[in-house]
Structures are given as C-alpha cells and as structure tokens.
C-alpha cells in the first residue's frame, strides 16, 4: 500500500503561556508513507519533527488537516500506532518479561497462551531472554530501551513511532541497537517513523529520509536512501563509504542552512 499513512495539510500552532504569542510548529504539511517503509524524520532541533510524529501517534492534536492510516481517519491514540520514547518508559514495578507482556495486555486478537508466546518471541528478538526476571532498574539503559521496543512490538501495532529512541545511549550501545533494529526490520517489515537528529543513524536505517526545515516544519528534501546505498549493503556493512559520506555531507549542508535560519530568526 503506497499511501499507508497519509498526512494532508497538517498544521500545528503552540501558544505561549500568556496566550498572546503564537508559534507555528508545523506548516500545512502533506506527506505519505508506504506500508513497510522505514522513514527517518531529520531536521534541526526544535523544528517540529517530533511534534509531527506525535500528531501521527494521536498524542497531540493537529489544528487543521487530517491523517489517515490505511484509509481510516485517525483520532487520538490507539494500539495501531506504537510509540518508543527517548526516555526509558519501561515500568519499574514489572520485570523485563512482564514489561514486554504488558504490550499484549490489551490485545483481544490472541489467546492468553499466545500472549506468552508473543512475549517470549520478542524477548528473544531483542536478546533479553536471560533477563526476563530482572526489574528494569537493574539493567542498563540500552537494555531498557530494548524492553520498550519489544513491548511496543508485542502490542502488534501497524505503525512504529520512534522518538530519538537511542538518543540517550552511549555510542557503542547505540550502534548495537541500530543494527538490531535493522534485523528486526528485516523480519517484521513494520512501517516506521523514526525521529532523529543523527544524520548517520538516519542514513544507516532509512528507506527514505525526510529533511524538515527550521520551525515551522516543512519538508525541505526527501531522499530515497535505497536508491543510493541498497539496504543490504548497509546492513552487512559493505556499503561504499564514499557514497555514504557524500550523502552525509549533502544532508548536513541542508540542515546547517536551516539551522542558520533558526538562529537568524531568533
């Protein structure tokens, strides 16, 4: 399905606390995402990319415009759009296993026995099978983030929304999880929106990169990464580094220009 997610003329404005000044966060913006596609939202910090993703997730409401998922108009959050946050959102009062199982809690499409199977499956997928009985404040930040990813996958969403999920992790853990996410993506083929400010992360993971302008967000450029570096090459670390770097520099140049504008505007 080519237009799995369809955003049409979405706008969003924030008002200052005294209600006097408004800040446009998202301009009338239209964007479509195909089923199974991995789309990275990239742009200068504070540009509104996270806001746009949260609107898709139903966690914030657009002022105007509409968002459809597989043709259905979206209102508010539900299990069809799973979210992974930058901060650790796993529940400290539950073990790793029960955290992941929590993802299946509100599913009525599978039996209790199947819920256990799903839990074990995703716990294994993120490599935490031997940590099932640990409470989450006794495991590392990277592990906690894997718990959050597994929990979201266990809820079987149609769309995976990731808000800088690896942003708080150290470089090595981040790289490890990036490759793990690529593996997961290979077997799951989940439609994913992934917000990041890390250009290399975007190139590594994306089918398509959408670069946003400084606030208010509009799409500056879309890059079909697969056309430049096939996903297999990226996954196997056999990509032509020359292509990788020139793509990175091209993207950085665009973002820098946008960032300059932000500073100028302020």
């Amino acid at each position, binding site marked *: 399905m080519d237009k799995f997610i369809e955003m049409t003329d979405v706008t969003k404005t924030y008002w200052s606390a005294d209600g006097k000044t408004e800040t446009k966060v998202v301009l009338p913006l239209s964007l479509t995402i195909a089923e199974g596609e991995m789309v990275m939202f990239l742009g200068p910090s504070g540009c509104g990319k996270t806001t746009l993703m949260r609107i898709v997730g*139903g966690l914030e409401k657009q002022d105007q415009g509409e968002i459809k998922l597989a043709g259905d108009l979206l209102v508010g*959050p539900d299990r069809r759009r799973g*979210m992974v946050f930058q901060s650790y959102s796993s529940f400290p009062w539950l073990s790793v296993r029960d955290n992941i199982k929590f993802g299946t809690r509100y*599913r009525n499409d599978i039996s209790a026995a199947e819920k256990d199977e799903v839990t074990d499956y995703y716990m294994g997928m993120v490599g935490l099978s031997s940590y099932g009985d640990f409470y989450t*404040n006794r495991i590392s930040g990277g592990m906690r983030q894997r718990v959050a990813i597994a*929990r979201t996958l266990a809820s079987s969403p149609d769309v995976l*929304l990731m808000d800088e999920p690896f942003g708080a992790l150290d470089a090595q853990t981040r790289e490890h999880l990036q490759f793990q996410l690529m593996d997961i993506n290979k077997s799951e083929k989940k439609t994913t929106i992934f917000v990041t400010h890390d250009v290399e992360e975007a190139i590594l993971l994306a089918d398509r990169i959408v670069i946003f302008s400084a606030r208010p967000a509009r799409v500056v450029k879309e890059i079909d990464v697969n056309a430049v570096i096939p996903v297999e090459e990226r996954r196997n670390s056999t990509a032509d580094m020359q292509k990788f770097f020139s793509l990175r520099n091209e993207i950085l140049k665009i973002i820098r220009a946008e960032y300059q504008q932000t500073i100028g505007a302020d």
Partner: protein
Amino acid sequence: MLKSLFVFRHALPRKTEIILGIFGFFLFLAIWHITAISGVIRPEFLPTPFAVAQAFIRLFTERDFASDIAVSVGRVWFAFLLSVVVAVPLGLLMSTYRVVGAILEPFIDFVRYLPVPALVPLLVIWFGVGETSKIAVLWMGTFFQLILLIADDTKRVPGEYIESGHTLGASNGQIMRHIIVPAALPNMVDNLRITLGWCWTYLIIAEIVAANSGIGYMIWSLRRFVKTPEVMAGIIAIGIIGLLTDQAFRFAHARLFSYLRR
C-alpha cells in the same frame, strides 16, 4: 579511630550508624539524668529517667495503660483509614480530571489552613464528646493534607508511562489501574506513613479536650496531680508507638517496593 568517623561527605558502615544512633539516645538520657540529680530543677518538674521508667511500669500495672493505648491506637487507625479511603480515590481523580481538581483545590487549600485545634469546639458541638467527635478531629486533620499529597504523587507519574499506555491500547480506566496506581504507589505509601504521624498529634489534642479514655486523656488527668514521671512516661509511650509504626511502614515499603532498590 575518631578521625575515621569524621570524613567529609562520606557514608558510614551500617553497624556504626546503629551504634551511633543508640549512643545518641544514651547521651540524651545521661544529660537528662545529670540535670535531674544536680538539683538545679526540682524533681516535681524533672524526675530522673529511672523515676520515669518506674512510672512507665506503674502505668501498666496500676492504671491499665494498655487499654488506654489500645483505645488511642484504635482511634488513630480508624480515622486514618477513613481518610485514606476517601482521599486516595479523590486525589487520583483530582490530578487526572482537571475539572475535579479545579473544583476541589481552592476549597481544600482553604480548609487546610484552618487550625484543627480551633475546630475542636465546633466538632464537639456537632458530634458531642463521644467517639465521633474525636474521629472527626483526626479526619479533618489528615484528610485535606492527604488528598493533596495523593494528587501530587499522581501528577508526578511520568507522561511517557501514560502515553505508552495509550499507544498500547489501554483505556483511561485501565491506565489508571494498571499504570498510574502502581507507578505512584511507593510515594503514596510514604505519604501515608507521614500522615499517620500527624494523626497522633491530633489524637492527643482531641483526647485532652474531650475524652475519658486514651493516652491523651491519661496524660492530662495525671497532670492535675503533678505526676510528672507518669506524664513523661505517657509522652514517651507515644514516641515509642510512633517509632514502631514508622519502622513497620518502612519495612513494608522496602518489601513491597524492592524493585526500587538498585
């Protein structure tokens, strides 16, 4: 030896901490005893620790102090549970539905600043000198504080937990029961412990003003005969009960919420 105790911003071994804590008590008792036998203060006003200890035993053997304690403990827990049962659900609603908070907060803030002792005469007029007025005093003293503390605990549950719940398909009620309550519970239990302590303060006030049983009543009636050792023994009994309750709460907290330990 002494130098190892005074290390700037440094933790001490658990055993040393306990020994020092006991030492603190004995230091206090020693100063007390020396002051009492020095003759600077007349023994009617300051009996020795030993006289108080003897009075403590007399209270149990001659005055049936145990039943006074039972009555007081019963009042405290009854009133405390009564305010928990109402304050917890209301506190949860206050911080999850803004409309409830907007209606209740200003009123609660107002009542909260009314001095409870000043309410005692009114409550006695309303409820007489029976059990009801004492329970009412305790309830007034704790409920309005507790409800705000519970609302605060609920508010502090991270937004990501709640948003995760929404995107995992939970309804508002499910988020309340399965996420907000367990997330806020450790802090709530802590606040219950603190509130129960206040209950004791108000109990003594209630029992002094209008009662014919209980620890407060006993202390107040012995005052008339200047039985200072007994009065002090009664006060110490309250301290011991408070300390034991507090420790029980802390123990339960550590057991229930062992996952908070790193």
